[in-house]
């Protein structure tokens, strides 16, 4: 029971941290983008973004009114107690966070268009599980805005199109998306697998730290090249023209079927909200992306 209460508190805290303050890697990337930006209008946008981040942090207010559709990514130690109860606790945590922080109610029934006003519903919050060795639970809260979600794309390419086709597809997606995903964005590219695997990997790529290169040399090279070419499109901050179109491109890959070459492109707005903590078996909590809040347990 004590552990469940801790999971509840931590999940609410993570949502609060995520929606009110950005992790250091994102803030640093924005600062670099501001310094490099040559467009006057682009600089106005980046300045407003940085002022907004500061103000949100200072006043403990959500950075953006779109506090997203909520996902949790879990790395659960197989010996962590009561794993079967975690999803239920996370649903309650979302309801509590919606009320307390508050979060904008964003979960809508696609048939009736009804909004239960608590950010929960069928498959929402979405919970992604990875079972690992050990007895701790790592939770990442990942509330994601709708603007950048609407520009995500999947292409089932011909294998003969290869890497060249992939790069062309990414550039096409960026140009087509224009200002809609709130650039400068983070771009997640999922390659290989089946369609669902590519999309899931593209999403997971968005959660990787921006300042760590990909451990796979080929993927790291692809990330570097895509970052450079995307920033040559001229789309710029908010699609108003300029240098800063993306803060980082992150790649994840799976082996593919000989006949398929799925490529998924996931966009994350500059308000790249994510927060992670580890709950140890003894109930001790370690916050990894943000400083613990005063009222944190």
């Amino acid at each position, binding site marked *: 029971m004590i552990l469940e209460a801790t999971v509840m508190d931590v999940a609410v805290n993570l949502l609060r941290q995520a929606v009110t303050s950005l992790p250091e890697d994102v803030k640093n990337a924005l600062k670099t983008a501001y310094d490099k930006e040559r467009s006057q209008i682009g600089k106005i946008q980046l300045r407003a973004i940085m002022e907004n981040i500061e103000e949100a942090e200072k006043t403990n207010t959500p950075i*953006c009114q779109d506090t997203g559709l909520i996902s949790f990514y879990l790395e659960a130690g197989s010996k962590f107690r009561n794993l079967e109860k975690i999803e239920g606790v996370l649903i309650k945590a979302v309801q509590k966070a919606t009320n307390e922080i508050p979060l*904008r109610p964003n979960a809508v029934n696609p048939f009736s268009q009804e909004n239960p006003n608590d950010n929960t519903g069928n498959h929402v919050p979405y919970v992604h599980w990875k079972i690992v060795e050990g007895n701790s639970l790592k939770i990442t809260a990942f509330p994601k805005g709708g603007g950048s979600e609407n520009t995500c794309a999947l292409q089932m390419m011909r294998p003969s199109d290869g890497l060249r086709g992939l790069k062309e597809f990414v*550039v096409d997606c960026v140009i087509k998306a224009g200002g809609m995903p709130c650039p400068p964005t983070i771009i997640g590219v999922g390659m290989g697998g089946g369609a669902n695997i590519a999309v899931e990997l593209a999403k997971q790529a968005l959660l990787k730290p921006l300042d760590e290169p990909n451990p796979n040399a080929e993927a790291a090279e692809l990330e570097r090249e895509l970052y450079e*070419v995307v920033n040559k499109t001229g789309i710029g901050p*908010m*699609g108003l023209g300029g240098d800063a179109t993306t803060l980082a491109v992150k790649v994840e890959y799976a082996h593919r079927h000989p006949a398929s070459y799925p490529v998924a492109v996931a966009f994350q*707005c500059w308000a790249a909200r994510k927060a992670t903590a580890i709950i140890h078996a003894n109930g001790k909590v370690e916050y990894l992306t943000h400083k613990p809040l005063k009222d944190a347990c």
Partner: protein
Amino acid sequence: MLKKIELKTPILEEDARKLTVGDVVYVTGTLLTARDAAHTRIMQFLHEGRKLPMVFEGLPLYHCGPLIKKTDGEWTVLAAGPTTSMRMESFEDEVIRNLGVRLVIGKGGMGEKTSGAMKEHGAVYGAFTGGAAVLASRLVKRVKNVEWLDLGMAEAVWTFEVDKFGPLIVCMDSRGNNLFTKVRTEAEKNKPKIISSFKVQ
């Protein structure tokens, strides 16, 4: 240097017509929010010839689904950044024609139909920085009214009193110029050069 302009509501047609793509506008006075569901309902009212419970004439229409808290009977705007305007493209020309909106505020820009109505009626589109929702909320001095709250907090039509609401970058003017289209056309033009620079061909 970019031109800075301060506007007060109601905005006159001649003042809206003076604005040019690239101008930076700050607006003081009254504005109304309306996004997807509100637009659908406005269209219903227009088609049925019913009177709307709010007046848009000369006022800015803001594509925004705010985060608002009610404490002790008072509304407090916590976050009120813009939403993607393109979703309203199929309605906005009629809204501008029928309701006399002079300034549409949002993010990401709009298309040909809206641009046509802006040209015809003397209205412009101003982009507010997407996601800069706390800055926006600081510029809202007061919630004056809310209609259609049955659509939900984000979809209701809120009337805000605002002070120097901006910076708004004029992206579509009443002469048919569209900065977003220009940026995208340029990007399309750059594409062959970008593609030929790929290291693996």
